C-alpha cells in the first residue's frame, strides 16, 4: 500500500511541479501576447498601433489579478478540463486546436518511431551477432554519422533535393487538395506529404536503438545462458533470437515507451520546416506567439505523456520481464 501511495504521490507531485512550471515559465518571459499578436498581424518590425493592441487585449482578455490568483484560477480550470482559449487561434479553444493537430503528430511520430525502432533493433541485433564484421562496422559507424546530423539540416537538404530539385514529394502541409476522410485520394496525399518529414525524422532516430541494442545484446551474448544455449547445440538463429535478442530487447522496449512519450516535443523543427500540421508546429507557434494557454497545454500534454510513458514502461517491464513481476508483487 505504501509502495503504491508513494508511487502515486510521486506521479501527482511531479505532475503538480510540471503544471506549476508550465504556468510560471511562460509568465516569466517578457512580452505581451496582445502586442505579439498585433505585431504578428502587422509584421515583425512594425510600430505597434496602440488602438489595435488595446482592442486585442480586450479581446483576448489579458490576464488579470496577481500571479497568485491567476495560478489558482489556472489550477481550477485545469481540474475542470478547461485549457482555455488559444491566443493564436482565437476564438477556438486550446482543446479544439490540439484536437485538430494531435492526430497528425501521433501518426507521424508513431509511424517513424515504430519504423526506426524496428530498424534499429534489427540492425543493432544483427551488428551485435556479427560483431566486428564489416557489416557491424558499417552499421555502427554509418548510424553514428547519420545520427549526428542536425534534423533541421537534413530537412532542408531533403526539401531541396527531393521536394524541389527532383520534385518527388510535396514539400509542405499534411495534404493539399483532397477532402479529409476515408478516401483513397486523401490517404495518398497524406502518405506522400508525410514522406519527407518522416524520412527527416527517420534518418536521425534509429541510431539510439541500434547502438543501445547492439551494446545490450553484446553484453547478453556473454551471459551464461547464451553459452549454455550454444552448448545445447541449438541453431544460431534460435540462440540469436530466442535467447540473446529476446533478453536484449527488454531495456529497448521500455526505452521505446519513454521515447514515444517524449518525442512529441522533438518534432518542432521538422514540422515547422515542412509546414506539417502537427503538434510540433503548434508548439513552435505557441512559443513564438506567447500563446500561454496553448503552450501550457502542449507542455502539459508532453510532460503527462512522458509521465504516463514512464508508468507504462514500468508496467511493460513487468509484463516483459518475468523477474520484475514478482518484485513488484
Amino acid at each position, binding site marked *: 500500500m505504501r509502495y503504491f501511495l508513494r508511487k502515486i504521490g510521486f506521479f501527482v507531485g511531479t505532475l503538480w511541479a510540471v503544471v506549476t512550471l508550465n504556468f510560471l515559465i511562460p509568465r516569466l518571459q517578457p512580452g505581451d501576447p496582445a502586442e505579439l499578436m498585433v505585431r504578428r498581424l502587422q509584421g515583425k518590425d512594425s510600430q505597434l498601433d496602440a488602438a489595435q493592441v488595446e482592442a486585442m487585449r480586450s479581446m483576448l482578455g489579458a490576464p488579470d489579478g496577481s500571479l497568485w490568483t491567476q495560478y489558482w484560477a489556472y489550477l481550477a480550470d485545469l481540474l475542470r478540463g478547461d485549457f482555455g482559449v488559444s491566443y493564436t487561434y482565437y476564438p477556438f479553444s486550446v482543446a479544439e486546436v490540439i484536437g485538430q493537430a494531435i492526430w497528425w503528430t501521433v501518426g507521424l511520430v508513431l509511424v517513424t518511431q515504430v519504423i526506426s525502432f524496428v530498424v534499429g533493433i534489427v540492425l543493432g541485433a544483427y551488428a551485435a551477432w556479427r560483431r566486428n564484421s564489416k557489416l557491424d562496422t558499417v552499421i555502427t559507424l554509418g548510424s553514428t554519422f547519420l545520427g549526428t546530423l542536425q534534423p533541421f539540416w537534413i530537412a532542408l537538404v531533403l526539401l531541396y533535393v527531393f521536394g524541389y530539385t527532383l520534385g518527388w514529394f510535396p514539400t509542405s502541409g499534411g495534404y493539399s487538395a483532397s477532402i479529409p476522410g476515408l478516401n483513397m485520394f486523401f490517404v495518398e496525399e497524406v502518405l506522400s506529404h508525410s514522406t519527407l518529414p518522416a524520412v527527416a525524422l527517420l534518418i536521425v532516430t534509429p541510431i539510439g536503438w541500434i547502438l543501445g541494442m547492439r551494446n545490450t545484446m553484446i553484453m547478453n551474448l556473454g551471459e551464461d*545462458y547464451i553459452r549454455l544455449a550454444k552448448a545445447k547445440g541449438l541453431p544460431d538463429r534460435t540462440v540469436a533470437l530466442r535467447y540473446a535478442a529476446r533478453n536484449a530487447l527488454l531495456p529497448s522496449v521500455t526505452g521505446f515507451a519513454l521515447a514515444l512519450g517524449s518525442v512529441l516535443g522533438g518534432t518542432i523543427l521538422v514540422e515547422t520546416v515542412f509546414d506539417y500540421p502537427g503538434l510540433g508546429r503548434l508548439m513552435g507557434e505557441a512559443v513564438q506567439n506567447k500563446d500561454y494557454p496553448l503552450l501550457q497545454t502542449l507542455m502539459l500534454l508532453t510532460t503527462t505523456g512522458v509521465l504516463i510513458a514512464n508508468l507504462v514502461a514500468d508496467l511493460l517491464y513487468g509484463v516483459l520481464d*518475468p523477474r520484475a513481476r514478482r518484485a513488484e508483487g
Partner: protein
Amino acid sequence: MARPTEGTALLEVRNLEVRYEPKASRSMTAVQDVSFDIKPGEFVGLIGESGSGKTTLATALLRLLEKPGRISNGTITFDGTDITHLDQDELREIRWRDLSTVFQSSMNSLNPVVRIEPQFRDAIEQHSDLRGDDVSARVRELFDMVFIDHRFITAFPHELSGGMKQRVNLALALALDPKLVLLDEPTTGLDVVVQHSILQNVRKLQEEKGFAVLFISHDIGTVLDLSDRILVMYAGRIVESQTAQELLREPLHPYTKGLLGSYGDPRAETVRITYIPGRPPDLSLVSEGCSFAPRCPEKIDRCLTDYPELLPIESGEVACHVAALHRLGGADGVELPERTRRFVGPEFVKTADESAQARERDIVLTVDNVTKVFEKRRGLKVDRTVAVADTSFVLRKGAVTALVGQSGSGKSTLARMITGIDSPTEGRIVFHAPDGDQEVSSYRGRALRNYRSHVQMVFQDPYSALNPTKRLGQILERPLINYQGLKGDALRAHVEELLGTVALTPADRFVNRYAYELSGGQRQRVVIARALAVLPEVIVADEPISSLDVSIRAEILELLNDLVQDHDVGILYITHDLLSARMLADDVIVLNEGRVVEQGPALQVIRDPQDDYTRTLLDAVPNPF
C-alpha cells in the same frame, strides 16, 4: 588405475594448449600441454585453485572458447571424433546429445525470460524425435530424477531457489542421456547443506545411468568424496592424476599434499591444518622450471630450471621431480627431501586447552534476548520475516565466539545489529564500554562513530572490502586519522607497524600498492590490519575465509587467532563451516532460521551435537578422512 589405453576412452585430450591473445594486453597460456582421458562411465574430478585454468580447460573441451582465447595446440577427441577444429554445424550434432554441461554460477544459465519447459523442449526437439506431449513427459521424468516438484516445470527461472535452479540445470544436462557431462563447479555459491545433497544426487544418477562425468571444483574434499579418479591442475597444467583412494592415501605432488593439508578433522583434540604460502604464478610471464617451485617446501635445484614432465608413477601420473626421483630413482647425488604424505609447510594448530582458558575472560558485549523482525509491505499484505528470534550470548575479550549456520539463518542480521547498522526489534545488545554499559541501538551520529572504534568488521570478500582506487597506505591511514588524530611521521610509522602486524613486510613495499596487486590472502590481511588500526575490543568477522582459496585459508585463521592472543580482541566469527569454527572459536553457537539451536564450547558441540541441524551441518563438511 593404469594409464588409460588408447581406443577405449570416451574423451581423449592430447597436449592441449589454450592461449589468450588480447590485442591490448599481454597474451598468456592458460592451459598448457594437458593430456588426459575419460572412459565411458568414469567420474573424473578436476581440482585446482582459482586461476589454475580449469574453467578455461572446460570451455575449450566444450569448444565454447571465445576470442581472444583459442586452442593453440593439441587435440580433443570425443567418442572417436576429433572435435578440436570441427565447425559449429558439425559440433551441433554432438552437443547435448553426447556432451552436456552444467556451468559454474549456473544461477544465470537459464534464460530468465523464458519458462523452464521450453528451455528443455528446444534442446530435446533439436536433438531427438520427441515432440509435443512426449517432451513434456520426458521433462517430468527428468524433474523426478532431481527431486523437483512438477509445478516448477512451467515456472520462470527466478521463481526457483538457487538449489532448485542447479537441480534443473542438472536435469537439463541429462535430458538426452549424454555420454559425458561436464560439471564446472556446479554448486559454487550454494549453501553447504544444499551442495551436499545435490552432489550426492549427481553421483547416484551417474552410477544409475552410467554416463561419464568431468567434475571441476576447487574443493578437494568434495572431489575426493565423489570421484573415481582425480586430476590436479596447477598453473595451467595437470600436475597429478590418481584414483581418489590412492590420492588420499599417498598424494604425490606437494601441491596436492598442500590441498589435503588444509583439511583437518574438527573432532580431534588438536587440529592441525596447513597452508600453502605465496601465490600462483602469473601465466602471462614465461617462467622457467616448475611453476609450483616458489611455493614448494620440497623443491630441489632442478625444480627451478626444468619443468617436470607428467610421468606415470605407481598407479597414477605426477609432474614433480622430487616425487619421480623418490619413486623411480635416478637421484644420483641429488639431495632429496624426506618422502612424506604431508605438506611440510606453515601450519595452524588449535588445541582444546586454549579454548578453555579463553572462556573465562571478561565479557565485552552481551546479546540479550534479541529478536529482529523485518516487515515488508506488498500491496495490502505485510510479510513478516523473523530473521533472529530471542537470541542471547556474550562476547569476551580475547575469545572467539563462532556463529554457525546456513545462509538465511540470521547470522548476518546479528552482525549488523552488533555493529550498530540495524537495531533489534526486541531485546538489547549491551556494550560494556570502559565508561559504563551502553545499549548499542542507542548510538547515533558521533556516538555511533565512536562505538565503531571499539567494534570493527572483517568482511567476507576482501576483493570488495578494499577500495580499488586507493593505495593501501591511504586505506590504513583513514581510521588512524579519524579516531586517533595521527599526522605526519607518526601516522606513517603507525601504518607500517600495522602492515607488520599482519605480516605484510617489508611495509614500505606495500604502502603504495593497490589492492588488485595483492593476492586474496594478502588483501584479507589488509582488511584485518584496518580493523586493528583503532585497537578495537571486538571484531566481527563475517565469513572471512570463505571466498579464499582452500590452500590459504589457514593462513588467515592463524592471523586472526594471533590477534586474539596478542591484542586481547574478542572476535565474533561468522561462518557456515564447522571445521573453521572449530579451528578458531572457543564457543560455538549454531543458528537455524533465526534461532539458536545449540550453544557451547566448540569441541563439545562438534563432538557431541545435540541438535539434528548441527548434525546436518557436520555431515555437509566434506571429510575425506
